[in-house]
C-alpha cells in the first residue's frame, strides 16, 4: 500500500525534466492519475456526507483535503498543494479534531437530522449537482484547451508583495484579530 501511495504521489510531482513538475498535459498517465485522485476526492466527500460519527467525518475530510492537495499537484500548483497539506490538513483539521474532542461527551453520541430533511437535502443536492453538470457540459470555455505553464513560487511571492499587497496585509491583520479573538473566546472563565 505504501508503495502505491509513494508511486502515485511521486508521479504526481512529475518527471524531473518537466520544468512545471506536473504530469505531461494530455497524457494517458495524467488521465489515470486524475481519475484516481478525483475518485479519492469524490469518495472522501461522500464519506463526509454519509458518516455519522463526527471523528470519522473529520478523517474523511482529511482524506478529501489530501486528495485535493494531490489534485493541486496535478494542476501544477505545487505550492498551493503543499500549503493545503500544511495549513488545511496539518493545522485547520487538527483544530477541528481538537474541537471535536473538547466537545464530545462520548465517541458514540450522535445527533441526527429529521428524515424529511435528509430526503429534501438529498433531492436538492443531487438536483443541484446534475444541473451544474449540465451547465458545465454546455459551457464552451474560451482558450482553455492548452494548459498554461506551471507554477513558479517566485512569481507568486512577488505578486503577493506587489499586486496583492493589500489583501496580503489584510489577511495578516485578519489572522491577528482571529488569534486574539480565539484566545479571548477560549479563555478560562474566571
Amino acid at each position, binding site marked *: 500500500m505504501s508503495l502505491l501511495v509513494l508511486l502515485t*504521489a511521486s508521479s504526481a510531482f512529475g518527471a524531473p525534466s518537466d520544468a512545471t513538475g506536473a504530469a505531461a498535459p494530455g497524457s494517458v498517465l495524467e488521465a489515470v492519475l486524475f481519475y484516481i485522485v478525483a475518485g479519492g476526492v469524490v469518495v472522501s466527500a461522500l464519506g463526509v456526507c454519509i458518516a455519522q460519527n463526527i471523528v470519522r467525518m473529520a478523517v474523511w475530510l482529511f482524506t478529501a483535503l489530501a486528495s485535493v492537495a494531490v489534485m493541486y499537484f496535478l494542476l501544477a500548483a505545487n505550492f498551493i498543494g503543499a500549503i493545503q*497539506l500544511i495549513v488545511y490538513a496539518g*493545522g485547520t483539521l487538527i483544530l477541528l479534531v481538537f474541537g471535536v*474532542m473538547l466537545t464530545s461527551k462520548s465517541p458514540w453520541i450522535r445527533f441526527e437530522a429529521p428524515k424529511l430533511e435528509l430526503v429534501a437535502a438529498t433531492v436538492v443536492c443531487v438536483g443541484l449537482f446534475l444541473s451544474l453538470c449540465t451547465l458545465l457540459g454546455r459551457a464552451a470555455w474560451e482558450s482553455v484547451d492548452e494548459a498554461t505553464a506551471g507554477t513558479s513560487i517566485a512569481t507568486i511571492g512577488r505578486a503577493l508583495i506587489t499586486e496583492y499587497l493589500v489583501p496580503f496585509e489584510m489577511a495578516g491583520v485578519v489572522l491577528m484579530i482571529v488569534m486574539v479573538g480565539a484566545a479571548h473566546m477560549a479563555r478560562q472563565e474566571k
Partner: protein
Amino acid sequence: MSQFAVPWREKPEPSHGFVSSFIVALAKGIYAIATPIVTRFPGSILLSAVVASCFLVWAHALLFSYVDTAVLERAAEVGAANPNAFGYFSPSTWGLPPSVIGTLLAGDAAVEGQSPGLLSYLLWPVQFGFTRDMIAFGAIFAWFNIVPVYVIWWERKVAGRIQSRLGPMRVGGWHGWAQSPADGIKLVLKEDFIPDAADSILFRAAPYFAIIPSALAFVALPFGVTYIFREVDVALVFILAMLGIEVMSVILGGWASNNKWSVYGGMREACQMVAYEIPMGMALLVPVVCVGSLSLKYIGEVQADGWFSWLAFRNPFAFVAFVTYFIASLASCKRAPFDLPEAESELVAGFLTEYSGFRWALFFFAEYAAMFVVGGLATIMFLGGWNSPIPSDWGAGLGESIWAKGLKGILFSGPIWFILKCVFFLFLQLWVRWTLPRIRLDQVLYACVQVLLPLTMVLLFGTTLWVWASESGNATWDVIASIVSKVLGIVGLAFGFGFVAIAGYGFYHRRRLVGNLVIDPLPGS
C-alpha cells in the same frame, strides 16, 4: 517461580502458522550463521559495511553518470532519441535498443549495424527513469527500514552508556547487534489486538497515517545532488507538510483507543505539534531567506564552498535559527524532553497505550524515520547538506572524467556526508533524550509561544535585514559580513571539535565509565 503460576489454567503451547514458522526459522538460521561471525569480527564488519556502502554509492554514481554522459547524451547528439517510448518516464525516455547502446559505448558514430556487447544489455534498463525510480525506491525503502531498527538499538546503547550500563548485550553476541531485528520479529508475530470499545476502523487506520507521511517525506529529501527521488520546487514545504500530517495519526490513535490516557496523549500531541510547527517553519525560513529558494536541492548546492559557506554560519541569525530549529524539531518528533504524548510516567504510554504488535511497530518506524527526516532537514538547511567541509572547487584539478566525478562525489559531496551529518543529529537527539528530564505541558507551550515564537520572528526579521544589506553591494558591509561569517564558522568549528573531543574521550574511557562490570552468561545458556 511456581507460586506465581496460575493454577487453574494450563498455558497452551503456542502454535504458529506456516508464515510465522517460516519467518522464525529464517531468522533463526540467519542468526545462527551471523552470530559467530559478527561476534568474532565486529570491527571488521562495521568498517567493511561503511566502506561497502561508500562503494555502493560510488558505483551508483559512476554508473548513472556514465550512462548519462556516455550513452544518452551521445544518443541525443546523433539524433537517436525515441521520445515516445513511454511518454512520461523522462528524462531517460530514449528507449534505445541495446544494440544502439553497445554502439554508443564503443564510441562509434555509426550507430547501426554493430553487434551488441554484454555491457549494453546490462546498461539498457538503467536508461529508463522507471528503472532508476525502482532502484531509488529500493534504496529508500531499505534505508527507511534500517534506520528505525538500528537507531533503536543505538539508542538503547547510548542510553546504557549514559546510565553507566551496557545496554543490550545478549542477542547476537557482539553488543546485542541483533536485538532490534529480534524485537521486530517478535512484534510482527504478536497477536493483533484491538480493544472492544475502540473505534476499530480508525484504530487500524491510525498507524498508516503515521507511516505514510513519514515515508513520503523521503520522496523529496535529497541525499545528494542527483540522489533525489523526486525533485520538487517546494520540497521544504512538502516535507514540513508531511511532518505536520503525522500528528493526525497520534490524535486518531489516541481517540480511537477509547482510553483516557490515549486521548490525553493525543490532545497533548495536537497542542504541541500545532504550536511547534510555527517556530519550526519560521526557523527554516531563515536559511530560505538567505538563499531565496524553497528547493532543497538548490539550497544544498549553494553550500558547496566548504565549512564557511554552510548556512548556519552565513549570519548570526541563521546560527541561532539552527539551534531554534533543532529544539522545535525535537518537539515535532515528540522526542524527549518533549515526549509528552507518550509520557510513560504519567499516561502509561499515552496514545500508544492500547497498541501492540505490528501497529505499535509502525508508529515507532514512523517516529524514527521522522527523526531522520528532521535531522536531514537540519543538515540541508544549515549544515551544508551533502557537501563536505572541504570547498568543492579544491577538486577542480581532478578533471571531469567519470572517475574524477566519482571521487569528487565521495570526497566533496555525496550521500555519505549527508548520512553522516544526519547520524550526528540522530545522536544529538538520543543524547538529549537521555540527558534532559521531560518538561510539563505548560512549560512546553510556554517555551514555544513565549520564547521560540518571538525569537524566530526576530531571527526572520534580522536575517531579512542582513540579506537586504548584503544585496545592497556595500563593500564595507561585505567585509563585515564575511568576518562575521568566519567568526561564526570558527565558533561552529570549536563546537564540532569539542563534540568530537568529548565523544572521543567517552569512547576511549568507555570501560571506566561502566565500571568493573562482569558480564555473566545467561543462566539458561
